[in-house]
C-alpha cells in the first residue's frame, strides 16, 4: 500500500514538474525584436492619420503580465491599443512578432521592457 502511494506521489510530482517546465518555456514563437519595430511603426502610421496625437505607443509590454498579454493576443482583442484601422491592417505574421515582443517583455517576464 505504501509502495503504491509512493509511486503515485512520485508520478504526480513528475507530472507537475514536467508541466511547469513546459509552461515556463511556452510563449509565442515570433520575432520580438522585429515586433518592437513593427509596433512602433503602427503607432507612427496611426499618428500620421491624426487619430492619435503622439506616435509614442500608449501601452508598453511591462504594463501587463505574460498571461494577460496571452489572453489579449489569443482573443485578438486589440481595442485597448486604439488605432483600430491600423491594427486591422497588420498581417498575422506581424501580429505574432508584436505578441512575442509583449509576451517576452511583460512585467513578470525575465526581461521586462523598460521605457526604451
Amino acid at each position: 500500500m505504501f509502495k503504491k502511494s509512493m509511486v503515485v506521489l512520485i508520478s504526480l510530482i513528475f507530472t507537475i514538474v514536467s508541466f511547469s517546465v513546459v509552461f515556463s518555456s511556452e510563449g509565442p514563437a515570433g520575432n520580438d525584436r522585429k515586433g518592437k519595430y513593427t509596433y512602433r511603426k503602427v503607432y507612427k502610421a496611426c499618428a500620421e492619420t491624426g487619430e492619435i496625437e503622439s506616435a509614442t505607443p500608449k501601452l508598453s509590454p511591462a504594463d501587463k503580465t505574460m498571461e494577460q498579454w496571452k489572453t489579449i493576443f489569443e482573443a485578438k482583442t486589440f481595442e485597448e491599443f486604439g488605432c483600430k484601422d491600423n491594427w486591422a491592417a497588420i498581417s498575422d505574421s506581424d501580429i505574432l512578432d508584436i505578441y512575442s515582443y509583449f509576451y517576452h517583455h511583460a512585467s513578470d517576464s525575465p526581461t521586462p521592457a523598460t521605457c526604451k
Partner: protein
Amino acid sequence: MKANTSKTFILILLAALLLLTGCVATQTTKTSEASKEDMSWMFPDIVDTSFVKTHVTVPMLDSVMIIDARPYKAKYVKGHIPGAVSIPFSEFDKKTALLPKDKNTLLIFYCEGLKCKLSHKSAKMAEKLGYTNVKVYAMGYPEWISLKDNYASISVEHVATQIAQNNTMIIDARPQKTKYDKGHIPTAINIPFSQFDILKGKLPRDLNTPVIFYCGGLNCRLSHKSAAKALEMGYTNVTVFAKGFPEWTKTYGVSNETLQVQAGEVEGSIELERFKSIIANNPETILLIDVRDADEFAKGSFKTAVNIPVETLEPKIKDLPDDKPIVFACSTGARSGEAFYMTKDVRESLKDVFYVEAQIDFKGDGKFEIKKSK
C-alpha cells in the same frame, strides 16, 4: 503546218532553256566569286564546339590557351568561355605579353560568331608572331552559350554589377567553416559542393533567376561542378565567376575586410565571436552605431562607435554610408534590433546591416563585457 508549229515551239523552248541556264550560270559564278571574296578574311584552321570543349579544363592546361578577341567591357566581362583569356583584337599589339611563351601552345581564338572577323584577324597576327598551332572557333561565343550543357564565366566587374542590381543569387561553393565563414562575397549564400544535394533547396524557386557560382579561383573546380548540377536541375541562367574569391578580394580589397562580418543565429544579428574579433583587431572595417541615448553613450561605449539614438535614427538612415557593414549596438539588443529592422524597412538596398544580439555592459574607456542573450 502543224509540224512547223511544233518545231518552232520546240526551238523557242530550247532557246528559253539556254537563256535560263546562262543566267543561272552567271549567277553561280557571281555568288562563288563573292564567296571567295568573303572567305578571304577567314583563318583556314577552323574548329568546332566539341574541339573547344575538350580543351576547356579546370585549371587550364599550360599547353592550351583560349582567347576571347571581343571587346573586354562590352562582351568578355558579361560572359566568356570558361578559362578564356581576354585579348581584344583592338588591343592585340599591346597585349601580346599575355600570350604564352611557348610558340607551340595551342591557341584557340573566338569572337561573336560566324560573321565576326576579330578572332580570324587575331589568329593571323598570332601566326605572324610565330605561333604554330593556331585555331579559330568560328561559331564563337553565341554557339557556345546556346548549347544546353554549356555555361559562361563572368568577370569580377559583372559580379559587382549583379550585386548592385540585386536580381541574382550568388553562391559560394566552398566549405563553410574553413572558407565561407572567414569571408565571402557580399550577399552570397553558401552551398558547399560537397553538400550540394542536401542544400540545393536554398537555390531560388524560379529556374530563370540568374545564379552565379564561385569558389577559390582558377584552380578550383567546385563552382564549375556546382554550375553543372544547377544546369541539370533546369536553371537557365547559370554562370561561374571562375577567378572567384581571390579575385574579389584583390579587386575590392577594402570591402573584403568588411565581408568578414558574419551573421549570427538570430536574424540580423552579427556572430558574437566575430564581432569581438572585429572590435579588437580591425574596428575601422565596420560602422558601429550605438543607438542608446546620448547620456548612456557619454558614460561609456565602444571606442569607434558613433551615437545615433534609435529615436532619432529614422531620418538619418538615408544618409548612412554603404561602403562598409553597419552594426547597431545597445545594451541588450532591444534598441539595436529595432534599429536593424528600421533600417531594413526604410532602406532595403543597404545589405550589410547587423545588430548585436547580446547583453553589453559598458565599463567606460572603451571597455565592455559582452554576454550572449539568454
